[in-house]
């Protein structure tokens, strides 16, 4: 074998070895989730009830509601704001832009106390709205940044042409800008979905009863003494948490990767 071929082979071996190491955690978790009962463990977890309600499907529903609500709010507010920052001129534009962006460095958890107080006085304690509003707030700054970047790339000529044809600002936004920025919209959508669906902190702190727990809190729920499951069942719930996102990843891998490279993650 030529030297180059030998080198390539070595590199391939290294890369696949790393990939194997990367898969080990998955295998480990799946293995323990199947201990002592196999697939039955998963059925048991799904069948767990409190007050005659199957709790895991409820958690999935909660995740769907919270994620859906958040995505709706972020998409609407961020695209509108990005449009204004990108294509319009108004006093205080720079100030507001910097204001919105600088919020990126602030962890939502540091707003724990004031927001808890706020939610309590608004009577929204433990409600879906509280989680949706907070998750939306956390994600709006980055979404605006990504959309503005994308809108900036849309030539002003289109807008001027539309204005000449008598289009209003809103119409231009809805029928010209948005369709032209579909890739960015999809990217943000996809990244948002993953970030919000996977979020753990906000549901942890702001939901007050297991009925409102999102899927990410399933292990917390099953860890409570009255619900305590043995280890295999606990890890079955972990796998259940991972499955929707992995399925989503398999279908949308390209869009996800593209979206995440546009702007970082919460980390």
């Amino acid at each position, binding site marked *: 074998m030529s030297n180059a071929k030998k080198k*390539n082979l070595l*590199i391939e071996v290294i*890369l*696949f070895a*790393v*990939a194997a190491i*990367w898969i*080990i*955690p998955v295998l*480990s978790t799946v293995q*323990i989730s199947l201990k002592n009962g196999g697939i039955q463990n998963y059925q048991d977890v799904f069948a767990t009830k409190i007050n005659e309600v199957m709790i895991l499907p409820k958690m999935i529903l909660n995740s769907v509601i919270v994620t859906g609500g958040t995505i709706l709010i972020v998409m*609407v*507010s961020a695209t*509108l*704001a990005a449009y*204004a920052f990108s294509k*319009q001129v*108004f006093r205080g*534009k720079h100030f*507001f832009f910097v*204001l*919105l*962006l*600088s*919020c990126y*460095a*602030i*962890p939502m*958890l*540091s*707003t*724990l*106390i*004031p*927001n808890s*107080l706020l939610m309590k006085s608004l009577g929204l304690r433990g409600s879906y709205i509280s989680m949706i509003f907070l998750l*939306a*707030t956390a994600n*709006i700054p*980055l979404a605006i*940044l*990504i959309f503005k*970047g994308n809108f900036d790339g849309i030539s002003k000529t289109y807008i001027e042409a539309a204005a000449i044809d008598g289009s209003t600002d809103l119409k231009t936004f809805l029928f010209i800008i948005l369709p032209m920025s579909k890739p960015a919209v999809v990217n943000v959508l996809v990244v948002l979905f993953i970030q919000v669906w*996977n*979020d*753990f902190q906000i549901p942890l702190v702001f939901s007050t009863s297991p009925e409102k727990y999102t899927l*990410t809190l399933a292990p917390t729920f099953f860890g409570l003494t009255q619900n305590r499951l043995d*280890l295999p069942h*606990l890890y079955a719930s*972990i796998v259940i948490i*991972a499955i929707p*996102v*992995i399925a*989503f*990843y398999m279908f949308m891998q390209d869009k996800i990767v593209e979206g995440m*490279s546009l702007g*970082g*993650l*919460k*980390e």
Partner: protein
Amino acid sequence: MRKNKWNSYLYILPAVAFVSVFLIYPILFNLISSFTKWKGLNFSAAEFVGLQNYAALWKDTVFRNDLKNCIFFMVLTLFFQMSIGLLLTVLLNMKLAGHRFLETVYFFPVVLSSVVIGYTFSHIFEPNFGALNTFLQSAGLSNLKRMWIGDPKYAIYAILIANIYQWAGMGIIYYRAGLAGISKDIYDAAKIDGAGFWQSFFKITIPLLKNIHVIILLMGTIGCLKFFDLAYIMTSGGPANSTEFPLLYLYRKFMRESNSGLASAVAIIIIILATLMSAGILKITGNGKEEGEL
């Protein structure tokens, strides 16, 4: 000419409203609250105590240790994520067989929830049945077995490994985009001059990716200050506070000890540190304010 200038304000209103109510107002509230002493959510009973909370934090060795953990963690995690990420990217860039599959594998932990990663690694490091100790046992290295998460000396490394696993894929994505911007001609020219793989790597690749390094550093430092999930799930900050981080401290002070004034002070400190660090990194590397643009 804009007919109605107030239109713009309407466009930014929803975003500004949310951020003002749920982020800006809380920061201001935290500021005021950090100068007072109060319990739980009973703010009406707050009493003004000046800088007492800040003084207490300054004196608290646990809090100082948290900050140390934060920095230690930050440096190590960034070093490994950047080096592993960059090396893998460069190797993947050779487009050898199966590189798409490999990329899928390397990146997938990024889409997993911290909950999944946390519990998965809790199990791997489990002393009796976990993958690591089981492997060491069967490889005849049982004297290397440890109580990984239960031991104050090793717990933080366990969390570190989980964190690297989760985010290394991100490094690949960023570096790949950066690498695409480097012309192949430079490498070819270097090869003609006799440069080997490592020489090209250190003298061409690394310096030319400076922009990407900055972005990753920026997000990494902010990310470490925001660090909470993995530590909460895997160790709850223990054992003996060896894996506690500032946000965990805040959480504990508020949720478990109801010391709201102190927790607010912690929040303010974290926010100040995050702002300083971001500004610092941007200044040192001479970049503008455009984050996330590649």
